[in-house]
């Protein structure tokens, strides 16, 4: 066993670790000072019992405050006094004011009500601007399902990942897809977790839809930088998706019928105020029609059967309160895409999907110490099978994790919120499992590689106030990975917020991240066959170091301006050899190439949250490069395809009244880079082969060209109805309103005469060659009917 720890713990960092350890020890001692009382508790939605993330709590007398964590828990401290006035608030809810005796510590659980708020005041983001302004956390975006549901949707399918692409600094792959390119990172460098379980492939239908059913999702946060110490494992972003807990007050349901899918969600109490459940499912139904068409044409010799395709996903969650201090949660996700084709002699199947499971235990040790212990299971696999009279073929890959994680939140004082915890993940990879041959066993092929890895981490961080104006969050994460070799690494994190005025803050952050598992994919599109591979002696962990500086300005109560500048250095980056064989390869590592990269840029965001018209504007300027890959461009710098210079987004929601709301989004992006062949050769071939008079010849440097710019306007209209049994709405979306032909890819095509028939070997000379742009989606109107009871 080889330990590679020294190369990942720079000596310059070691004194900093000792200082941090010492100061944290000191802080625990300071806590022994008396004369303070602690108020803690949980903040929930009064109607459904859902815990509220990021609700603010402050004490009127002292002006000190706090906000609820990801589990709705809060804790704050104040001087002992006769009485204390607590104010609880959460955007979209009525504030709650409570006056309590202040001589002893208390647990105060609060239910907030969303009723009686004027519609135009119902802002959809869970963090108030003021809270964002004061927070040390920068480079974070937040989306709720409620927000996503008001915006136009592709084929009427509300998609939380596509909505988040509308935020500054998060570029989409290209037309219609869910891939995220965050600050110069590739899609595999995003950690996507669903109720704390990793989702390895968040895509349905090659990335045109995400795996997240908006009806089951409570909240999504995406961290682009300044990563909190509790997160690790990917170098570019963290996308944290939280599922709803289920209504523990009353039984209810919701759903929708759209062009592509139908959805149904049921939720309710199992034991009132103690236990609740939520189940949610959706399924596409194009295959219902294709099967009918195939059946109708069974006797038609000229008819070519249409392949069947559908996807579905299913979410379920149960929670149970064991008492005032303990709560258990069980949640799971299961989703699959299925593609199949069958005729008299040929059966082809291709299915893929994720399964995740989470068991979580929240425990309140005392008013200052809260813990969350989570056991998760995560699986992604694909399987291609093919049967042809007497022969069969199957190819598949999978990645399967089980993990255990404990997080502790310790509210040391109003000036110190400490988090610490540890996790361990066991990875199991089944790579390129091939089995083929004849039924009689005379012919047999097989391939495949099984690998494992143990990933672990521990962290501590302290959110601290240094006086009235300066806040800091200092943290340190220690991580490692073990299989045939061992890698250890330190990941320091630091974030600062200096309040110049009550409405203007300057922020800065630094984060180092390490990534021990890697996506094996050469296509710029998300394919189900993209597989994951662990770090080994040859494949070293990817590392990122990112610094960001910026400012936030609150204009009045409802306008928020942010501006950030970042630089990210990426080490041990992975590309793949020329025409690498990635599907079935027992020596996959031979196809890996290693180098480094960097990205830098600027992001500007402006949000408006008051009045009938709400929305945001976002602009991103970015530069991305890769370099020092031995076999690519002679080791010199080159552009990755996602080096996109400008991205602009405008999102507007206009609420006429309770019945009607209109929304519009407009996106503009510089065209993606593309590797275009610049010359061609005539390839005669060996005797028996066809002559190819126009073989494309790609030459380095790669990705020197840009596709035409991408831009698109979408409109959405939501008409609400209020029948006696509940609520319903008709959501009308128009995707690509002005029918822009956006580039999907560029191809160079030979032109032959109209009467040309290529039937014999020999030199057939085309008339010329044209460059063609292929687009995917023209103007696409859609209608979805949603209901809730």
């Amino acid at each position, binding site marked *: 066993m080889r330990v590679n720890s020294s190369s990942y713990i720079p000596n310059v960092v070691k004194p900093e670790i000792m200082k941090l350890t010492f100061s944290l020890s000191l802080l625990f001692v300071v806590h022994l000072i008396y004369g303070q009382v602690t108020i803690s508790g949980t903040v929930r939605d009064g109607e459904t019992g859902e815990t509220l993330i990021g609700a603010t709590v402050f004490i009127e007398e002292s002006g000190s405050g706090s906000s609820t964590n990801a589990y709705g828990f809060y804790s704050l401290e104040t001087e002992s006094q006769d009485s204390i006035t607590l104010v609880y608030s959460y955007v979209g809810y009525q504030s709650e004011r409570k006056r309590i005796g202040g001589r002893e510590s208390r647990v105060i659980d609060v239910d907030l009500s969303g009723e009686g708020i004027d519609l135009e005041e119902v802002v959809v983001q869970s963090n108030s601007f003021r809270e964002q302004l004061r927070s040390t956390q920068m480079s974070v975006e937040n989306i709720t399902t409620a927000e996503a549901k008001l915006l136009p949707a592709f084929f009427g399918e509300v998609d939380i990942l596509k909505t988040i692409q509308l935020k500054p600094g998060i570029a989409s792959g290209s037309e219609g897809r869910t891939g995220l390119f965050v600050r110069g990172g590739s899609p595999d460098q995003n950690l996507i977790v669903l109720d704390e379980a990793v989702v390895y492939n968040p895509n349905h239908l090659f990335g045109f839809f995400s795996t997240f059913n908006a009806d089951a999702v409570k909240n999504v946060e995406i961290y682009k930088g300044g990563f909190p110490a509790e997160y690790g494992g990917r170098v570019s972003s963290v996308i944290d998706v939280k599922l709803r807990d289920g209504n523990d007050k009353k039984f209810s349901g919701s759903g929708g019928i759209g062009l592509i899918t139908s959805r149904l969600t049921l939720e309710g109490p199992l034991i009132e105020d103690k236990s609740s459940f939520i189940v949610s499912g959706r399924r596409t139904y194009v295959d219902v029609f294709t099967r009918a068409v195939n059946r109708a044409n069974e006797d038609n*010799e000229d008819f070519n059967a249409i392949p069947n395709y559908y996807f579905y996903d299913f979410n379920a969650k149960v929670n149970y309160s064991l008492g005032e201090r303990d709560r258990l949660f069980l949640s799971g996700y299961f989703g699959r895409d299925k*593609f199949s084709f069958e005729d*008299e*002699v040929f059966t082809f199947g*291709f299915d893929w999907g994720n399964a995740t499971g989470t068991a979580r235990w929240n425990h309140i040790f005392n008013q200052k110490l809260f813990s969350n212990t989570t056991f998760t299971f995560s699986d992604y696999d694909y399987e291609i099978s093919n049967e*042809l*009279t007497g022969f069969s073929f199957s190819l598949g890959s999978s990645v399967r994790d089980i993990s255990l994680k404990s997080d502790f939140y310790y509210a040391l004082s109003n000036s110190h919120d400490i988090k610490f915890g540890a996790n361990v993940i066991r990875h199991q990879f089944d790579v390129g499992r*091939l089995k*083929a*041959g004849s039924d009689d066993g*005379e*012919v*047999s*092929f097989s*391939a495949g590689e099984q690998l494992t890895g143990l990933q672990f981490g521990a962290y501590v961080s302290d959110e601290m106030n240094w006086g009235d104006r300066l806040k800091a969050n200092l943290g340190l994460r220690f991580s490692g990975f073990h299989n045939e070799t061992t890698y250890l690494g330190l990941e320091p994190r630091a974030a600062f917020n200096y309040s110049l005025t009550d409405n203007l803050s300057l922020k800065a952050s630094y984060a180092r991240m390490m990534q021990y598992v890697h996506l094996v994919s050469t*296509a*710029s599109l998300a*394919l189900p066959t993209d597989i994951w591979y662990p770090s080994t002696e040859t494949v070293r962990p990817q590392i990122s170091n990112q610094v960001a500086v910026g400012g936030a300005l609150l204009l009045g109560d409802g306008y928020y301006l942010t501006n950030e500048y970042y630089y990210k250095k990426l080490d041990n980056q992975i590309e*793949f050899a*020329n025409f690498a064989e990635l599907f*079935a390869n027992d020596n996959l590592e031979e196809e890996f190439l290693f180098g480094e990269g960097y990205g830098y840029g600027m992001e500007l965001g402006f949000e408006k949250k008051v009045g009938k018209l709400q929305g945001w504007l976002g602009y991103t300027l970015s530069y991305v490069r890769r370099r020092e890959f031995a076999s690519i461009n002679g080791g010199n710098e080159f552009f990755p395809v996602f080096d996109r210079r400008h991205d602009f987004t405008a999102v507007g929601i206009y609420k006429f009244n309770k019945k009607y709301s209109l929304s519009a989004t407009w996106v503009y992006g510089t065209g993606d880079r593309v*590797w275009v*062949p*610049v*010359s*061609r*050769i005539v390839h*005669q071939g*060996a*005797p*028996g082969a066809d*002559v*190819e008079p126009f*073989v*494309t*010849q*790609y030459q*380095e440097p*790669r990705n020197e060209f840009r596709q*035409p710019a991408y831009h698109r306007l979408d409109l959405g209209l939501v008409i609400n109805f209020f029948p006696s049994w509940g609520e319903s709405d008709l959501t009308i979306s128009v995707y690509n309103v002005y029918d822009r*032909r956006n580039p*999907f*890819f*560029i191809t160079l095509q030979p032109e032959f005469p109209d009467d040309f028939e*290529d039937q*014999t*070997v020999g*030199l057939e*000379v*085309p*008339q*010329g*060659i044209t*460059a*063609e*742009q*292929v*687009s*995917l989606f*023209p103007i696409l109107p859609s209608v979805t009917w949603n209901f809730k009871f």
Partner: protein
Amino acid sequence: MKNSKYIFAFLALLAAACDLTQEIDLELPDAGGQPVVECYLEPGEPYRLLLTRSSAYFDDFPQDPQEFIDQILIDSAEIEIRRGAETIPLDNVANIDFDFSKLYNYSSTELVPYDTLSDFELFILLPDGSSIEASTMILPVVPIDSVVIEFPEEEVDPDSIPKARALTYISDNPTQVNYYRRMYHWNSLDSIPEQDFVTSDDFVDNGTLVFGTGFDYPVGDTLYNSIFHMTEDYYNYQLSIFNSIAANANPFAPPGLIESNVRGSSDPLGIFTGLSIYRDTTIVEE
């Protein structure tokens, strides 16, 4: 990227249905002029070589085939192939293989021997003084063990003409890495092959490879099965040619460079390889 063709077919269908392709202007830099060599040493055939130059992508295509050929051929080069102490000069004389409709602009009257022990070396001096070099060998032929004609076990449609498939079996030497090119033609060798692909023997478990066709051939059809035993250089070159063609038309197929085995001061491209081909002719019978 085998399964990507299904995905791409779906997307192409969608694009075609909505007229989602449009011609665009693309300004490409000046390119082309790179020498391209194709020299296949086939035992029993003359030494022959095609020497052409690459073209910028949007260069005109002369519509007269002769004019087109003249545009791309490189003449007046000095070429020789060495096998041990023997040197075979190739003259700048056209050689046409009428059986397969192939043209070569350099050839010798001497025939390539079936010599699997010697190295063959290629030297080319171009008219501009630059050079091309390469070396290769001729691998032993891997014979086809059998071609089995099968009709479906269950009758598909009593009114239709029964159609058979052909299963072509070869034995693979498990003690070494082998590369193969599978090609089969329907009714005429001088036609576009029904199948043409390359493969390695990486995953063969028990020393037998089988290549199949669909149930497409009625009684009386003739099938020409060809198995090429390829050098690794030739395999990589041919695979990169296939992939380059695919990358231009399929967004799921990544682009890449053509992997040639010719080197030299002229920055050449191409392949110099022995051809070890076993061909079998089978007539479909009941």
